[in-house]
């Protein structure tokens, strides 16, 4: 029984060996994975972050901003990629588009909820001090909204890195190429690549957590934790 289990776990050792032995392949696929995820995150941030912040600042459009997250979370990523492929065709751009569709909702909703939820008294006080709307947004609302905004970014980045794996099926490349091709790389290759994807996702999440720490004003720092992604915040807090 125990020997059998050890035998099973031997696959993980083989998997690590695969990663070391085929490091050029792994590095190449990991880089493709990073490119794919990075491109999608960049587009999604450019589209969603300013919109969420502006809507939150104006306290407008809560219906759209909040329901978008619910709809976005409901969309099965595999189905989105598949449908994108059916209508747009195979390739890098199509996969990035599908990933952007999945990344926008958590970013937009969290940015909206974060800025919208800044205590009105603070905004009032800032206005009383003679700050303009732009100054209030930049010096009061954004710093206070930072933790929630980053929670959204972290949710999105984990989601995107995970889903980029599925992109292999649609010709997007990345570590998924190895994971979905057991015939060519055997179980140890599949497991090795799966470990790499997990590490990549955890690293992206952790990295963003560190950036969040650096950007958070000292006075607010104790509330934020770099280790715990607040994955449900944007959705459950209304």
């Amino acid at each position, binding site marked *: 029984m125990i020997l059998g289990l050890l035998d099973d776990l031997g696959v993980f050792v083989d998997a690590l060996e695969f990663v070391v032995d085929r490091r050029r392949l792994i590095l190449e696929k990991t880089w493709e994975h990073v490119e794919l995820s990075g491109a999608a995150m960049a587009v999604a941030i450019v589209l969603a972050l300013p919109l969420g912040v502006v809507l939150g600042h104006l306290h407008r459009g809560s219906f759209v901003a909040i329901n978008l997250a619910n709809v976005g979370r409901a969309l099965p990523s595999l*189905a989105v990629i598949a449908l994108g492929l059916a209508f747009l065709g195979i390739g890098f751009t199509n996969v990035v588009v599908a990933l952007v569709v999945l990344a926008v909702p958590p970013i937009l909703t969290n940015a909206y909820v974060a800025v919208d939820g800044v205590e009105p008294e603070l905004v009032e006080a800032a206005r009383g001090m003679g700050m303009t709307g732009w100054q209030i947004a930049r010096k009061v609302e954004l710093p206070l909204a930072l933790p929630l905004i980053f929670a959204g970014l972290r949710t999105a980045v984990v989601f995107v890195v995970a889903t980029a794996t599925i992109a292999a099926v649609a010709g997007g490349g990345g570590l998924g190429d190895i994971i979905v091709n057991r015939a060519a790389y055997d179980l140890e290759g599949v497991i090795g690549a799966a470990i790499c994807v997990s590490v990549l996702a955890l690293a992206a999440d952790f990295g963003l957590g560190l950036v969040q720490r650096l950007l958070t004003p000292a006075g607010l720092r104790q509330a934020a934790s770099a280790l715990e*992604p607040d994955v*449900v915040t944007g959705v459950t807090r209304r």
Partner: protein
Amino acid sequence: MTGPRALLAQTDPVIPDFGEGSECVVENRLFCPDWVRDNWAGVIQPALLEHVKLTLIAVAIGFVLSMVAALVTHRYRLVERPFVTFSAVVYTIPSLALFQLLVPVTGLTVTTVEVALVGYTLLILYRNILEGLRGVPAEVLEAARGMGLTRRQTLWRVELPLAVPAIVAGLRVAIVSTIALATVAALVIPEGLGYPIFLALREAFKTEIIVAGGLAVMLALAADGLLVLAERALTPWARARRTA
């Protein structure tokens, strides 16, 4: 499209073979109603039912585990950090990777899929249940104690009912995200809507992609809609407060 279609055993890119179907199927046009008619009972409907089954089993098990863990935490506190850290790490592992990582341990079985799906529900359900229990106002607990309720009675008659909105909200997120994740399960077992999606993706067969992919999206959206209604029905007081 007849005969067994193996997903995992395939090595080379498949030469598209759309069967002996109609002209539409052979030419792989965007949508062929006749293919859907011919394959609904054999391919699509079973996949849909399997998908629902996979989802319900995972959420049921996840709910029981989270409930027990949340109740223990509520009473003793000490398990909170390890549980949250564990479930947060699990939550971060990409679904495709987690399914594959479990294969050496539990094989290409339903168990592998369910273990992964349950793992993903834990963080959402546990946090929401705990948040619901902790959200009960101190005055209410005080009043319960003043009325002579024991700890257990307080839990069942006061805390849990008041936690229902948060719990149902968590269930909603858990069910919808499990529906989404279950599509990926097809890489491990030939079940659920993910299976026809993966097969159709390999062959770039548009009709099947659109039907199976569309159904997965609609299933998730429909489940979300139904759960919103359930949430409202289960918490009439919240609605009264909203309109007040």
